[in-house]
């Protein structure tokens, strides 16, 4: 019922691309006077193929930057601030405004006035300057390649995760399955990373991570199957579109949106959420890097930016999982009616769809943060028992319920 801020990311970027290519073409044509073959190059740049390719490149870059730079830093900041408040302290406070030189802070010593938003950037810069240590006995090639596998497979989930009805890279018919498939590649990377460092902590951590992530991807897939009974599709945009209406029960329209969480899918929602907490390795299920007994789990031997990447991608997994949950069960980016004002027939979004979606993602993430900082860690055999003896029967039950509702109509 609300309109997206970016109705068509591809179209938007195409304008940008056309402008860039036009400028480049003018330069090339200007140069083509002395060097005639360049004119052909200029013509080639104007073809549809090049424009489409460059546009896709720009779209992908925009989304990658949006995800990694803006959302990653924000979610890390939110987490650090939130759990600090939970623990009765301020958390990160040093910001640009406390830098001890002229335009910022006249006192010539750091102050603690800021909100600390750029602290994570500073941490990243620090990590870049750190030496990268490879253990002598490690399997060097695997040790270096597995973070790439983990990072890129997690990032791939964002290729099909739409941020509104217009802000996406690709609109696949099997988008949800694609995200789950992207998640399912990480256990192998973690396992190889843990094995290759030739360290006992990483080995045990990697094995635990693999066993846990494998176990919990089954309930997630089963919960999605239960959802398919109602949606009949795995396209995220279609799924959200189905939820963008009020519930009609026995002829009366209730003032409740028709999110899949309200109704027979509630059990599936619970199962899926728990499975996703495990998939993002947060505290009740963060046994792969149980820092108390396995120093830092499978990331023990990574140092410098490698550690930064494998560490930061935990938050990316959290973003992706929160987005997935809100698309599947919480109505995605559908906002209330007042979010859009119609001038004539043109919808003008006061709060665009992206806002509602980001709100849901961050709300879910905040819930996960609070949850993870208020419960202890579960033991690995208990985790697996929960997964196999509770979640899988429950998810099968959710399938039965969904099928039953479909049979009854």
């Amino acid at each position, binding site marked *: 019922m609300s309109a997206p801020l970016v109705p068509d990311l591809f179209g938007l970027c195409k304008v940008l691309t056309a402008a860039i290519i036009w400028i480049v073409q003018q330069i090339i044509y200007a140069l083509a006077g002395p060097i005639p073959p360049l004119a052909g190059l200029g013509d080639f740049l104007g073809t549809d193929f090049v424009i489409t390719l460059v546009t896709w490149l720009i779209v992908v870059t925009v*989304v990658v930057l949006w995800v990694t730079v803006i959302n990653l830093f924000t979610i890390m900041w939110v987490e650090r601030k939130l759990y600090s408040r939970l623990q009765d302290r301020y958390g990160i406070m040093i910001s640009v405004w406390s830098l001890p030189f002229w335009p910022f802070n006249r006192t010539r010593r750091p102050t603690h006035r800021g909100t600390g938003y750029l602290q994570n950037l500073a941490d990243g810069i620090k990590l870049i300057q750190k030496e990268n240590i490879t253990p002598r006995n490690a399997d060097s090639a695997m040790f270096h390649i597995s973070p*790439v596998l983990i990072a890129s497979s997690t990032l*791939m989930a964002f*290729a099909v995760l739409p941020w509104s009805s217009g802000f996406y890279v*690709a609109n696949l018919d099997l988008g949800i399955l694609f995200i789950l498939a992207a998640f399912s590649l990480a256990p192998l990377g973690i396992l190889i990373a843990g094995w290759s460092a030739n*360290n006992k902590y990483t*080995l045990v951590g990697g094995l635990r991570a693999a066993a846990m992530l494998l176990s919990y991807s089954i309930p997630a897939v089963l919960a999605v199957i239960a959802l398919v009974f109602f949606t*009949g599709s795995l396209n995220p945009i279609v799924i959200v579109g189905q939820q963008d209406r009020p519930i009609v029960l026995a002829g009366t329209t209730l003032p409740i949106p028709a999110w899949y969480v309200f109704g027979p899918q509630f059990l599936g929602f619970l199962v899926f959420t728990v499975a996703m907490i495990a998939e993002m390795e947060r505290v009740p299920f963060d046994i792969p890097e149980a820092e108390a007994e396995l120093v830092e789990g499978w990331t023990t031997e990574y140092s410098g930016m490698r550690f930064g990447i494998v560490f930061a991608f935990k938050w990316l997994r959290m973003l992706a999982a929160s987005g997935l949950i809100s698309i599947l069960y919480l109505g995605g980016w559908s906002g209330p009616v007042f979010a859009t004002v119609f001038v004539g027939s043109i919808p003008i979004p006061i709060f665009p769809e992206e806002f509602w979606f980001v709100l849901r993602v961050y709300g879910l993430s905040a819930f996960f943060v609070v949850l993870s900082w208020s419960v202890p860690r579960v033991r690995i055999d208990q985790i697996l028992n929960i997964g196999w*003896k509770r979640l899988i029967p429950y998810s099968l039950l959710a399938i039965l319920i969904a099928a039953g509702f479909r049979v009854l109509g």
Partner: protein
Amino acid sequence: MALESYVPVVIFAVVALLFPLGTFFATRLFRPDHPTPLKDLTYECGEVPEGEAQIQFHFQYYMFALIFVIFDVAAIFLLLWAFAWGGLLTSASPVAKFSIFLFLGIMFVATQYALKKEEVIQI
């Protein structure tokens, strides 16, 4: 058709692969690199490591991985079944509709049995 919609995914895959790789190569410009024998030692709480870690390792969760693969394949069957549900409803044969429940039941019982047995044997 679907193939065109996968073009951005392929581009995204390339960028996603280049992103960590690029980060790692970029750090080479900034970081020091002075390996010493002591620094390159495997971390084992400040002690000299005892033995190798890449050994034959008794890991009792192997059974879980085995059951996982079975379940994964089964989940795919279920997914197809869920997609075909609407079609099955219109077709009159109840056997096609509900035989999957038999399959589900058998698989569930077998899994629980395997898990119970594993508790006795392994953990």
